[in-house]
């Protein structure tokens, strides 16, 4: 189950950021990832909400700086990775 959720997360990020899921690291951020523009940032948030059936606050979305933050946010919403 946990493995599955992590897989879902990486697949989603890989799809939007156009990167192979296995190459995704916690340090990946808009500064070092070409496809991670503001639109794709919002798309990641929207798609995570849909995939995991959760709702982020605006604060959570704005303060997310990298993949590590995304994982922490998911954990806050009860998604165990």
């Amino acid at each position, binding site marked *: 189950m946990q493995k599955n959720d992590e897989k879902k997360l990486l697949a*989603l990020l890989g*799809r*939007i950021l156009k990167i192979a899921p296995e190459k995704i690291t916690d340090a990946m951020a808009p500064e070092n990832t070409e496809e991670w523009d*503001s*639109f794709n940032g*919002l*798309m990641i*948030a*929207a*798609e995570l*909400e*849909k995939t995991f059936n959760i709702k*982020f606050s*605006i604060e959570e*979305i*704005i303060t997310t700086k990298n993949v590590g933050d995304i994982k922490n946010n998911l954990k806050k919403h009860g998604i165990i990775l």
Partner: protein
Amino acid sequence: MINNLKEEIKKNNSSFSILIKLSEEVRRDPNFKKDEIKRIAILSDFTLKGLGDCLMSKAFYNDIYIDIYEGDYGQWQQEILGEELYKFNPDLNFIILDNFGLDRDLFYNYHCLENGKIKKIMNDYLNNLLSMIGKIKNKNKGKIVVSNISSYGNLITGITSNKVKNNLRKLILEANIVLENEFLNDKQVFIFDYDGWLGHIGKDKYLYGKYYFLGDMRIEPASFPLLSDQLLAYLIPIASKTKKCLVLDLDNTIWGGIIGEDNMEGIKLSPTGEGKMFYIFQKLILSLSKLGIILAINSKNNKEDVDKVFKEHPYMILKEDDFAAIRINWQDKVTNMKELAEELNIGLDSMVFMDDDPANREMIRKMIPEVEVIDLPEDPAFYWKTLLEYKGFSTLKYTDEDRDRGKMYFAEKKRRDLKKELVDMDSFLKNLNLEVEIKPITKFDIPRVTQLTQKTNQFNLTTRRYQEENIKKFIENNDQVWTLNVNDKFGDYGLVGVIIARSNKKVWEIDTFLLSCRVLGKKIEENFFRYMLKELRVIESKKVIGKYIPTKKNMQVEYFYKKIGFTVQATSEIETIWQLDLAEFDFVPANHITFNKKYAKE
């Protein structure tokens, strides 16, 4: 062969990011037909990034190939006033606006503004919009789809909203009616009921959510796939992909239960109680057939059991006469489906199949991928909604012919039954009492003639698709546009054939020659054409040039010109050019057809 990419799109048809991702593959797919591309422009006053890609994937699923022009963010008016849009030359322009949302002062001040001022705001808005639409019309011949004005459901004035001096909801409704009326008879401009659609999917859920504050997304990204479905409905008729025939299973599809086991008394079909879901579904199917969609049955059953239901069940809404062709037997549904297509003389890709059994659906999908298979939900209570949501029957215009098509196909069924009794073809044809009228086009014929050029695939020598404007142009140029009307003892087929002959210096060129498939097999084809040649000779006796442009569907007319006596002038992969000198041509009318009886009287 099943297309994996199409399967993938179907599986993920509600996921925004997956549809965007798949659109990249769509562009590279070997089945992406570049020569059939429709150019689509999306203009908006808010962020709709990614909508075009979503639409591209969904279009591909429907065998429609598109190229997208997305206007710069918020710059729909600059796009219309600029040049880039027209260089792209769209076949279809979508203008999606959210002008009366939270960003407008009106939302906060409507209840305290003077009446005159608010009227002026509305008028200025409409005038600007109409002038923008006019600007596109001047420079582009493509269709234009404009969203109407949406309003937020909850207003600050609450339950007194319709008591305050300026009722915002009412003002927007009135403006929308003005907009609809303005384009009621316009062939180029269509008003998309954006407000209605938003209400349907849920304004609270999708309008002005969090992403509005984060990225000016007036509607939530999650709604983009749903919006694509709405836009697709306009794309289908423009790409000439409108479906013609709904093929239905019977047991557990148009009634609950299995007739062979539950008997007539046991099946669920009634105006009240559990049978109501099927009763309503049938009413909706009948309603659809009145729009010109042909109905057919493909069912594994004993014919006698079903006949009894048709004849005796008190709540059957659909009658046997409503179906243009019927296969009720124990042979496999794939064979039945192919036979139905043949009997109705329509392509398999014009057919839509509805069956409650997933195994049957899978089989049709695998064996005849051309047929569109609708996944009915497990709960029959939602069948009727599935039918209403389906976009494949979309057309931009309904003609009187559409309305009567069901009747005409039923008359055709009776004709076929007669064919079985009369073995001898000549006496069969004579018995039909065929009457044809061949005459120059009148302005009332323009919509139907246009529609025939759009929809006719099989008996069509050049398959040139025209809009009404094109047909009008032919008429203005004094080109010969002639029509064929046919009736026989069973009924009137209406306008079913078109010939467009252009006078080109020393030759007549047959630009278009087509016949609706419902009159084929009656030896009308050659007679119509020969009659036309005779008429052309009266106007000017010279050489006639006719082209055969092969498509996947018009093989049956490959050697038509040869039958008339034409010889080959040139041939290539793209076309064969045939020629005939009118001086050497003779018209002998067939003895099973009466020509221009009605026409002569006038």
